Structure formats: C-alpha cells, structure tokens
C-alpha cells in the first residue's frame, strides 16, 4: 500500500494508454478486477498489466471460468506467471479448467475461494469504512473454518473482515472527465463496490463526455471514487 504514487492531476484523470494509466502498479500489489468471467472485463488494462510485467500480484475478481475467444482475460494474465494469488468465487470452470486451474494445480498460484456475496460484502465493507460484518453465509461449512462465529436471532453468523486493495481495474460504458460513470446492463456488477475499495482506481471506458453529459440521477459510480480513465477503444 505504501508505494502507491500520488494521484496524478496534470492531465486531469484521462490517460493516453493503458500502460500510462497503470503507472505505479508495483510488485506484490493487490488488484481488484471488475467484470464477469470474460464479460465486461477491463481487457485493455489487463493486457497492459501483462505488458508491464509486474509480478506477485494478488487479483480479486469474479474468476476465469469463461473467456471469449481472442480476448485477453484473467486467465491470460494468470498464464503469464504474474499472479501469485487469486481471490474469487469461481476461479475456473470445474469442467473446462484453464490456466488458473493449471497453475493452481502445479502450486504456482494460491487460490482463496469465497462465496460471491461474501466477497461483495467484504469489498463493500472495505470501501465503506466498515471493519467487519457478521454474515449467515457458510456457517458450519469450510467457508467458516477458523473464523469467529456468533449467534444473532438464534442463527449462527460468521465474522468476515473488510477487504481493500491497492488498485482497482474497472470497466464502464461512459464516464465524464471528472470520473462519474455509468454502466451498461450487467456490466455494472462488481464495478461500483470495487471503485470504493481501492487506493487507486483505473477505469476503462467506451466513451468520455464532458461534465453535465451524464444525468445526475443515473450516475452509478461517483467521480470521487475514480482516479484515472483510459479509453477502451
């Protein structure tokens, strides 16, 4: 967390290339990656991360259980050997496998498997300044192993701690130059909470408009959470 640079302001929030927008990503950084296993991923930023070659990354993401052909996805980044650990509810497809499974099997990748709602809630807690939450999910299973348990209303709950990261790589449809963002369809999924839970957030967007170009009632991620923007095209 300590080696993240000052947020650049000279050119506003807009960066010319993915590599430039990823400046400061360091060896051992934790990185949140939005998207849904091949859909709505920040592909250009993932590719940029591959090109920079920085290693020992911890990725927090939905997983790599599907990938569109020709696309550079989570699995491809894992295949480069830059990823040390992945935190995910569906790290790979149990039947089709892929690079995540291969590297996990060979001991080169550590996996922390977390139910999706628990991961979402941990990120939300991280972004909202909550230290920890008691959730019913996974009581009396492996997901509760080693964790503090407490009954509420006669039901066992598991203490889950907040999760934060050094960087978040996001994908939105439209942003204004201030960083207010809207999404398309299910592309919204992980973005809003990940935008709140990282020290530096980088968003890959289809389109950038001037402030006022987005309806304030429709903005999903507010500009205060966004540090850097890069065009997806």
């Amino acid at each position, binding site marked *: 967390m300590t080696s993240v640079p000052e947020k650049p302001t000279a050119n506003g929030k807009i960066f010319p290339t993915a590599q430039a927008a990823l400046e400061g990503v360091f060896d051992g950084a934790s990185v949140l990656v939005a998207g849904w296993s091949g859909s709505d991923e920040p592909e250009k930023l993932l590719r940029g991360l591959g090109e920079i070659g920085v290693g020992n990354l911890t990725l927090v993401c939905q997983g790599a259980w599907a990938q569109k052909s020709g696309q550079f996805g989570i699995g491809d980044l894992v295949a480069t050997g830059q990823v040390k650990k992945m935190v995910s509810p569906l790290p790979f497809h149990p039947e089709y496998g892929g690079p995540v*499974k291969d590297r996990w099997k060979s001991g080169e990748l550590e*996996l922390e498997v977390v139910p999706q709602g628990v991961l979402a809630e941990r990120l939300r807690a991280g972004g909202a300044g909550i230290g920890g*939450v008691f959730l019913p999910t996974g009581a009396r299973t492996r997901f509760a192993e080693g964790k503090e348990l407490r009954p509420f209303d006669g039901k066992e709950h598991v203490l889950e701690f907040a999760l934060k990261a050094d960087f978040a790589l996001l994908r939105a449809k439209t942003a204004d130059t201030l960083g207010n963002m809207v*999404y398309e369809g299910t592309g919204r999924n992980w973005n809003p909470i990940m935008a709140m839970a990282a020290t530096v957030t980088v968003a890959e967007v289809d389109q950038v408009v001037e402030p006022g170009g987005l309806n304030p009632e429709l903005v999903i991620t507010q500009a205060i959470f966004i540090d850097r923007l890069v065009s997806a095209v």
Partner: protein
Amino acid sequence: MPGKPLDPSFVARRVAQELFPGAVVALGPGLPCGLPSALRNGSGVWLVSDSGFLGFQGPGPEAADGEFQTVVMLSGGAYTGVVDIGGILRGGHTDIAVLQPAQVSANGDFVHWTTAATLGLFAPGSAVDMAYGASKVVAVIPHQNADGSSTILGQCSLPVDGAGQVDIIISDAAVINVSQDGLELVEIAPGWTVDEVVAMTDAPLSISSVKEMGFEVPALEMPNKVYPNALEALKDVPEGSIINVDGFAGPGGMAHYLMVGLRDLGVKGLQLISNTAGVARVSGFGAPNIIDHSILVENNQVAKATASYPVSPSASRPSAFEEAYNRGETELEVVPQGTLAERLRCGGAGVAAFYTPTGAGTLLGEGKEARSIGGKDYILETGLRADFCIIRGHKADTLGNVVYKGTSRNFNPVMATTAKITVVEVDEIVEPGELGPEEIVTPGLFVDRIVVRPPEFSAYL
C-alpha cells in the same frame, strides 16, 4: 426395468410448481437455468441472476445469466450490482433458491459444484449465499451420477457448501422433502416404482403417501400492488409497529400522503425509524402547516423514535417529538446518520451486525462491543428491520420499480429493503418498461404497495 430419467425440461416444469405469484427466485448454474424456459412467459415472478439481473425470461439474445446462456430482460426488469444481489439473496427477500448440488445429504447438507477433476476445489459462486439466504432451497439434481452412484446420501462424502440448507430435492426420478426428521419420498416420476427410487437412493427415505410427479406449469400473475388510497394501503398496520419513515430533515422526500393516512388510521404505539423525529415544521422551511412526523406525535401515536436528528435546530421552537419526550411520553434512540443508514442497509441485506468506527470512545459507543481491527477502534452495531416502511418516490411502475428525484433518494432506497411491507407514494404510476432497467433505483421486488400521491400533496418532491 427401471424408469427413464426425466428430461431436464420436465424437471424444470416440476420446479415451476414450487413458485407462487410474485415470488423472488434465485437460480444457480446448471439445471436451474432451465427454469425460465419452462415458465410460460417468465413474468409473475422475479427471477434473480447473480450477475446483476432482475426479472428475465430466456433464452434470448440480450444478456448473460449465471450460466452464460443468453436471456431476455422482461419489461420491468432491472440491473443491479453484486453487492445488492448479495443483499437480495441474504436479506430475507429471496423466496426460493434453485441450485444444482453435486450431493445432498439426509439432513439437507449439500456440496455444490464439483467434479473429480477439480481436486477438491469448490466453486461456490453465489450458491452458498442463495442457500443461506432463501426461505426455501430447492436442490435440482440427477438422481444418480454417470457411474450409477447416488447423489442423495446419508452424509455428504465431500466437504459441504451448505449445512442443513436444502428443503426439497427434485431429481429426474423423484421429489423428496428434507426436514429435521430426514428425507421423505413424496413423488415419483412416471414409469418409476417406489422400490426403484429407494434402491437408487443412498439415504433412508420415509414413505407414507407417494404421488406421481405432474408437469403442469402454473399460471403466475404478479400480484396487484396498486392501492386506491393511503388508508387502504396502510389499514393492516398493527399497534406497536416499527415503521421506517423516509425523508431527510425538511419536507422533501417525505411520504406526506401516507403519513396523513397513518394519522387518520390512529394506530398507536408506533416506533419510528427516521433521520429526524420530525423537525421539518420547526426548521424554517416556510409553510407553517408542513406535514412531518409531528402529526403522528401530536396524535399520541408515537412510542419511540430512532433518529439522528431528533431535536429542533432552534431551542425556542421545540418539535412535537421533543415536547412529548420531555413529558416522558416517548422513548428516543439517537444514532449517527451514517450508522443509521448502515444499520438499515445491514438489516435489509441480511448482515446481522457490523463494526463501524463512528462513535468509538464516545457516549454513542457505550454499552456496545468495542474492538480494535487493524489498529483502529470500532464498535459493533446491529442491523435494523421494520414492519412497515413508507417512502416517497417520483415514479413507480405497476411492478413496484421506483425512481426518485434529486435528493429525495437519500434514505428511501435503503429503507425500502428493510421492512416486511414497503408502501410507496408516487407522483405517477407507469407501465412496466417505461422506467429503464439502468435507471431503476429501487427494484420492484422490494415494494409491496403503491399509491398515487394526490395533487394537493405535491409541493415537495
């Protein structure tokens, strides 16, 4: 000669019989994704996909559901993020979860999605959230694995993803109820005998009356949510109810029409949860006869308020609540605004309690658990839930999807998630599809009743 396993489409049709009009139904990957096709038109229930998709039918060309089949969003569907999906699954909003476990045990434990090839790795996705959150968990499975072994076992042979969560098993040969007493065979598929089903089930089955499975898909119509007026929409509010009252401090964003209805009903002993305990009338917003919580206090209906701004900004103009409090007629629980919002959010999202830094080391933290996490001091706060919620929207569609205008959004969306019955007053009711799926702020599955706010109440948004 044993019977033939049912085609998945017939299993899906049997699953459809578990649904009821207006049910919120979450689908896991695999066989459950056959359900939308089995439903005649997909409407009449809320199908939830954990990818952030509410209200769909399938298959179709437009978006991806949990199984990467494409599905079509219905008119009145909405998009949302994964954290809100988690809240919908966990917070008492999901009536039925349909999952395809690899194994189910006699006490309702299940192992989700695994194969020999995964070396013990498990892919919970949202299945665990669904299993622990839904009122009823339906396990849809082939009765046997390809090697002829049973998927229904006395005890799971692999680490479980849910302990005691499954309520009913619908296989390609039978329907089995799961309770504390174990498994009861209640239906068998056509062509099968009870003995054959028993023989391929590796767990004890109790048998008293067994029917043949039927495959008729029920006609499901969304229940009507539009009420003629406030009194009708509130007439069953019982004495002593906990009621969320929206709004901020001024009269904006407040359900004035419903508040008047509540006053006219005269129901007593109410416990209000609200940002203020009614200060709009005394805080200089102009009109002297502004409607706020004071009308309920003056009518002796309020026993308690939980609020972040309980008192008037001006000592010389105390609010009705302050006066009642000073006379010893009401109780007060003071909560910082962010803590109030978070407690409501947690109540609505199935988070029992949370550690917040706000108020640590102060009077607000007294009597609460204090804990240091990562070197920072926190106090434990619990989720808040209510019996009723009255909120002010701008527009709603007939399914209950709501949009707001300006800052009147503030407490409304979170309050709408925490009450057993949520009643909304709006300027206009529109047909499903008129509010865009990207635009909907409160999805209709949180809303039970809608009334139109009469024009004489429309001075404030």
